[in-house]
């Protein structure tokens, strides 16, 4: 039995890798999960992302530098447009949309941080296509994660550590192991919480990380609002045309 445990531990140590941070671009991108209407003619396959600008200090809310934010936003807008059939594959043609990101507005209480993000869209040297909105807005509430009750385990570790240190044994590995266990249990607990489209459990309870999480997701909801507005408008226009004919 003991041999099986040791082999199991070794195998786990060989296979287990640190948790992967999910791609930052993907966190802003509107995927098919949003179930928004797809593009239809004449807007289908006609748009591309032009310049992306941001209000002064807007990047501070996102935890990344201004250039990184512009690049991330540009890539995620491009991916979002592609997902719903609006992207013009040829970078030299199509309608280039210029995007400006305002500083997200943040409010917070004991249990959550709420961010509202606003995007403005313009088209340089050309007529704005019908059904393309001039602005879009998204709101997201980041909830504070719950913590698993590992008090008993921590107390046992600390008590044992005190005894072990006094006996000349420094249990650094043991303390680290307890930190890992605690993190795993928190993740297990939070995996069972259910969030809506405009709210979610933040990966960490620190106010800075909750603000960042809320700002990123609010911007994603704003991009979704932009795509949804185009889809709804196109569907309504198609219905009108059908009614006239």
């Amino acid at each position, binding site marked *: *039995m003991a041999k099986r*445990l040791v082999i*199991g*531990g070794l*195998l*786990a*140590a*060989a*296979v*287990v*890798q*640190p*948790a*992967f941070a*999910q*791609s930052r*671009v*993907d*966190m802003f*991108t*509107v*995927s*098919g*999960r949003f179930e928004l209407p797809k593009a239809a003619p004449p807007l289908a396959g006609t748009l591309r992302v032009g310049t992306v600008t941001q209000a002064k200090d807007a990047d501070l809310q996102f935890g990344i530098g201004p250039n990184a934010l512009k690049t991330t936003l540009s890539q*995620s807008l491009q*991916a979002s447009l*592609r*997902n*719903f059939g609006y992207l013009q594959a040829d970078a030299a043609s199509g309608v280039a949309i210029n995007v400006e990101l305002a500083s997200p507005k943040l409010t917070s209480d004991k249990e959550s941080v709420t961010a509202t993000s606003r995007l403005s869209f313009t088209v340089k040297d050309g007529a704005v296509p019908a059904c393309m909105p001039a602005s879009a807005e998204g709101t997201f509430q980041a909830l504070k994660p719950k913590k*698993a009750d*590992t008090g*008993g*385990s921590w107390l*046992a*570790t600390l008590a*044992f550590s005190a005894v*072990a240190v006094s006996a000349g*044994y420094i*249990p650094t*590995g*043991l303390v*680290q*192991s*307890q930190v*890992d*266990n605690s993190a*795993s*249990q928190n*993740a*297990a*607990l*939070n*995996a*069972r919480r259910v969030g809506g489209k405009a709210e979610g459990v933040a990966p960490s309870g620190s106010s800075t990380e909750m603000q960042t999480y809320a700002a990123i997701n609010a911007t994603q909801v704003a991009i979704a609002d932009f795509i949804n507005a185009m889809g709804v408008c196109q569907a309504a226009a198609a219905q009108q045309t059908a009614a006239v004919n």
Partner: protein
Amino acid sequence: MKKVLVLIAAVVALAGCVSIPPNPLTPDARQALFVKDVAATWALTPPKKEPKKPVDPVEFKAAQTDVETRLTAAVGNAFASSPAGADGVTFKIEIKRFTPGFLGSVGGDVTVIRVADNKVLGVYTDVFGADTSGAQGGLIGLAIAAASKPDSIGIMSNQFATNLRARFERKK
């Protein structure tokens, strides 16, 4: 000193032998999808009494239900916002190995199925998750972890999801 160096070289060489199957999905294919649903099925039956370690089939059944819920939640969480493509897929987990309790483990294959046409895009074989509570603390750590009764199924489910994410991220 020479012996130590030879030993280190041997350990490094052996570590390199831990083979992980190639990624069944290309980077382009991965970017085009998002995980819409995660489901778990069982490819094993509750064990009958083993001679040395009796397993209560009722308790095992309860643990099976728990692992099914927690495993699907953990995998869903690991792929919640990424990838962010247009095509919805289901991750179908076929659980082939499961040992409940402290230092238990769960393992199986994960089939990626496109929702639109039920096409199988790829299979991640032998994904594995274990409750290694206290393993880093040696025997003392194991003793304390056993006494504190950690959330074994939660831990092994999260490790399974982390390992699957790592396999999914691999370039080749």
